[in-house]
């Protein structure tokens, strides 16, 4: 069966510090991968999605970036965090456009 992992589970970082969140998927090959953000009391905002290694599409202009160095690994990064980057970050995978399956999320607090 497929599983999706995210780490860390929680993170507190000062403004201006770098960020790296990691997502890995097991039990499937060549999935679509997605990064979402949920701000407090808000819905889901799609940040990035990837249909293959090295292929990243950005949905929203921001100071975040994403990379997919391996088939089942998706990384969300920032060089300098802003207060507005605080939120709950969710990674998801899907098999070519159908339903998405979500990871447990990372709670990021920028102080």
């Amino acid at each position, binding site marked *: 069966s497929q599983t999706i992992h995210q780490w860390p589970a929680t993170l507190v970082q000062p403004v201006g510090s770098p960020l790296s969140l990691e997502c890995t998927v097991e039990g499937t090959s060549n999935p679509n991968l997605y990064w979402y953000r949920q701000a407090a009391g*808000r*819905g*889901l905002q*799609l940040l990035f999605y990837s249909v293959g290694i090295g292929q990243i599409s950005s949905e929203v202009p921001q100071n975040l970036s994403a990379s997919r160095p391996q088939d089942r690994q998706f990384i969300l990064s920032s060089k300098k965090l802003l207060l507005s980057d605080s939120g709950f970050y*969710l990674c998801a995978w899907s098999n070519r*456009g159908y*339903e*998405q399956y979500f990871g447990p999320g990372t709670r990021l607090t920028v102080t």
Partner: protein
Amino acid sequence: AQSVTQPDIHITVSEGASLELRCNYSYGATPYLFWYVQSPGQGLQLLLKYFSGDTLVQGIKGFEAEFKRSQSSFNLRKPSVHWSDAAEYFCAVGGLTDSWGKLQFGAGTQVVVTP
């Protein structure tokens, strides 16, 4: 414009009572339809999905949803809620030709269950 609407931001229901959450979409064709549930501090869990065929779909945890093409709706129902059903529920649409591989989520409905 394409959209997914969940008209109810917040619903309070008594334990044992029935629950219905509304979802309406605005798209030219019938999209794929999904309901997800999110408990506090957790990721989203897929409750059920509709692609085609029987318009009444059964899901996990005793939930069902009915697709009504004439109303562009995909409402979620449960006959008798349990305290553990307190969570946020998201309707989503996908399979759209101009955004293949992506889901469009509604804003969510927060469900509170009272004793």
